[in-house]
Structures are given as structure tokens and as C-alpha cells.
């Protein structure tokens, strides 16, 4: 069971490395969206600090959403997914491996770039640390939940925009507590409770979403 996880993970990462634009576009989308806001909202330092957590989180939501469409679609088109479905390996493990690879390629870069964003918005070091932690805990949840939407809309025309309609409402708690953690850390509040909640959500979604995604894949590829 662990071998299949590792094999799939390495396979997905190798495949992604051959098409670097797919990986980088999510990251650049994140950076561009975040850099656009000061142009629109003004460059007043206090305003930027105030809106930074929400903008970073909304941008992270949209960036991970954009990348979701391709999570299963290339495997679906070339028939690999069908092989995975009829293989004797547990589908939840396969799903988990694919989602983890997806997160490494689209979520982790956001975590790494977040300090830079913090500097753009004049956040102090503590707030930047909390922001990195919250994104580190939050983006895997986005990938895990989003996988359900990606599996449900598999092979549909206009799947990308449909995923957004299905999944964005479900992202609300992560948005609230993710940006809440950063806001609290800036206003001398206690942000530990937020991070603990995000951690709890991460564990719950690790347990339940692969199962739902596997069910959705079976429905979609019948």
C-alpha cells in the first residue's frame, strides 16, 4: 500500500516536471493577483496590512482551484484512470497520492512564496510566520476538498468553472480561519486557536475526503 503511494507520487511529480508551465502558472497566478490588489486598493500601508490576510487567502483559494481541473483529467483522457479503478490497489490510497502530488506542485510553492507576499504588504515577522503556517495547514485541505469537485466534474465541458461553483462554498471555513489567524496575529490576538482548528480540519479531511473522491471517481468514470 505504501509502495503504490510512493510510485504514484513519483510518477505524478515526474510527469509534472516535464510540463513546467502547468506548475508555475498557479504560482504566478497567485503572485499576480496579490500584486494587483495594491494597485487597485491604494498603497496606504495601514490599508494594505488590514486587507493582506484576506487577499492572500482568497488568492490562494483561487490559485489552488485553477490547478484542480487537471488533477484527474489527463489520467482520465489517456485511460490511466480506468486502469487505476480496476486495479487491486485501494482507490483511496491512489487518490491520496495524487492529491499529495498535486499539493506539492501547487500548494507548497504558495507556502514558500508567502513570506515575499508578507513583505509586499508590510506585515511584521510574526504575522508572516503565522501566515506561512496557516497556508501550510490550509492549502492541503483545499486540495483534498477540491479533489472531490475535480472527480465529480471529470470530463465535462467547462469543468473548470463548474468546479469553482461546486467547491468554493465549501472552502468558506478555511478562508475564515486562515485569514482570521493572520488578522489575529497582527492585532496582538491569540492565533493558536485558529491554527489548531485548521489542523483539525486537515486531519478530518485527510480521513474523509479520499473516500468521497474515490466514490466520485467511480461515479464519473462508469
Amino acid at each position, binding site marked *: 500500500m505504501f509502495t503504490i503511494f510512493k510510485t504514484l507520487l513519483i510518477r505524478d511529480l515526474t510527469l509534472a516536471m516535464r510540463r513546467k508551465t502547468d506548475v508555475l502558472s498557479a504560482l504566478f497566478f497567485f503572485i499576480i493577483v496579490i500584486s494587483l490588489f495594491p494597485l487597485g486598493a491604494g498603497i496606504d500601508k495601514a490599508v494594505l496590512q488590514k486587507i493582506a490576510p484576506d487577499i492572500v487567502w482568497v488568492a490562494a483559494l483561487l490559485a489552488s482551484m485553477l490547478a484542480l481541473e487537471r488533477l484527474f483529467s489527463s489520467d482520465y483522457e489517456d485511460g490511466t484512470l480506468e486502469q487505476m479503478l480496476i486495479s487491486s490497489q485501494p482507490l483511496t490510497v491512489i487518490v491520496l497520492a495524487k492529491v499529495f502530488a498535486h499539493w506539492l506542485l501547487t500548494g507548497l510553492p504558495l507556502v514558500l512564496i508567502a513570506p515575499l507576499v508578507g513583505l509586499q504588504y508590510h506585515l511584521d515577522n510574526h504575522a508572516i510566520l503565522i501566515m506561512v503556517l496557516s497556508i501550510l495547514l490550509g492549502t492541503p485541505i483545499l486540495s483534498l476538498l477540491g479533489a*472531490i469537485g475535480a472527480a*465529480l*466534474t471529470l470530463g*465535462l*465541458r*467547462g469543468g473548470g468553472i*463548474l468546479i469553482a*461553483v*461546486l467547491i*468554493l*462554498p*465549501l472552502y*468558506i*471555513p478555511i478562508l*475564515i*480561519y486562515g485569514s*482570521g489567524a493572520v488578522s*489575529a496575529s497582527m492585532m496582538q*490576538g*491569540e492565533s493558536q*486557536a*485558529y491554527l*489548531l*482548528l485548521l489542523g483539525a*480540519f486537515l486531519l478530518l479531511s485527510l480521513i*474523509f475526503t479520499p473516500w*468521497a473522491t474515490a*466514490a*466520485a471517481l467511480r*461515479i*464519473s468514470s*462508469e
Partner: protein
Amino acid sequence: MKINWFKYSAPSTFYPLTHKLVPVFAGLAFLLIMGGLYWGFFQTPDLLTDQKQYYRILYVHVGAAWMSMWLYAVLVFWALIGLIFNTRLAYMLAAATAPTGAIFTFLTLWTGAFWGKTSWGTYWDWDPRMTTELILLFLYIGYMALQSAIDDSRRSDRASALLATVGLVLIPIIFWSVNCPDPNQCAALHQQSSMSQVEGNIRIAWLVTALGFWMFAFMVILMRVKNIILQREQHTTWVKRLICSNEGQQ
């Protein structure tokens, strides 16, 4: 006495049943809504003086809000029945429930906006209950979007049923997060039900109207199920025989 519940799980036997039930629910809905509104408008003049006339918005607002939430539960119930027993009719009922639920959710937001304007001075505020209702509308829209995006009815039924179930699991978390965005202060935030503080006549009016809305929901959901059955089974012989025999009146 043993009732064969599964007898009515086939669309061909369910269809004549709905045909008998629709007028019943239509009558009940009409009577109850009219009765409730009559009571609310004409039996409460002393309570609702000129400054408080806007209370009458609540006669439709409360019922619509209850129905908007209740219908999502009904939707998920049928979706789960469909997923477990794999009955087509359950999926059809779930699909038929969603638009009515969305309409009641919209009505709740609409009447709530006017209520808010009169009592708080603003059409919209990011109050937890209003945000909750807005998110509920998004969930209904997501369900219907997925349902209509998939051409194959078997796949669309099952996929949207799964989505509704996932939505139900997440709803408590979503609503809770909207209710208390700051986990450090959650204990302080409790929404009290205002039901018991309301004067008796007003309460009667909105309970009866809400009951009427429920009957209305039964009626339109059954009407929509009939349409869905006709649409999906239009190539079967029983539908053709039905249409031929009754000149389309049945």
C-alpha cells in the same frame, strides 16, 4: 397490515399517485397560506400599530427560511436513499427538490432584506444568519449546476447526490465558522431563538403560513417530479400509453 413501500418506487406506479396528490396539496397550501395571512393581517391590528406594521414581512420570511433549510435536508435524504438503494425515483425526488429549495432561499434573502431595511436600516448586513442563508443558496446552485452539466442522467443523479451529501457533512462546519469567526470567543456567541418572545397571534399566523409553504413545496416538488418522469421515460411504453389514453390530461 403490510404496505409494499417499494411498489411506489417505480416511476410508472408513482406517477398516478402524484397525480392524485397534487390537487390535495394545492388545496391545502392555498387554504393554509390564505388562512395564515388573513390571521396575520386582520387579526392583529391592536398589536401591530403603525410603527410595527413591518412585522408582517415575517409571515412570509419565517416560513420561507424554515423551508429553505428543511428542503436541503429533504434533498440530502432522497440523495442518500438513492445512493443506498439505487432507486431512480429517489434521485428524481432529490432533483425536483433543489429548485424549490433555491427559490425559498432566495425568497428568504429578499424578504429578509426588506425586513432588515425597516428594522435595522440596511438591506444587507453580514450577520451570521444572512450569510448562512446566502451560502445555502450557493449550495443549491452548485447542486443544480452539476445536475444540469452532466448529460447522462444516471451519472448526473449520482454525482449530484454525492455532492449534496458532502455538502451536508460540511454544512455544520461552514455554519459554525460563519457563526464564530473568532474561535477564542465562541462561547459568548449564542443565537437565541426569538420564537417564544413573539405574541401568540403573530406566532399562529406565521406557523400556519409556514405550514402552507410546506404544502406548497409538496405540490411543486410533485409537479416537478412528474415532469422529470415524463422527460426521462418518454420513450417507454407506459408513458406513451398514458399520453394516448387520456389525451394528455392525465
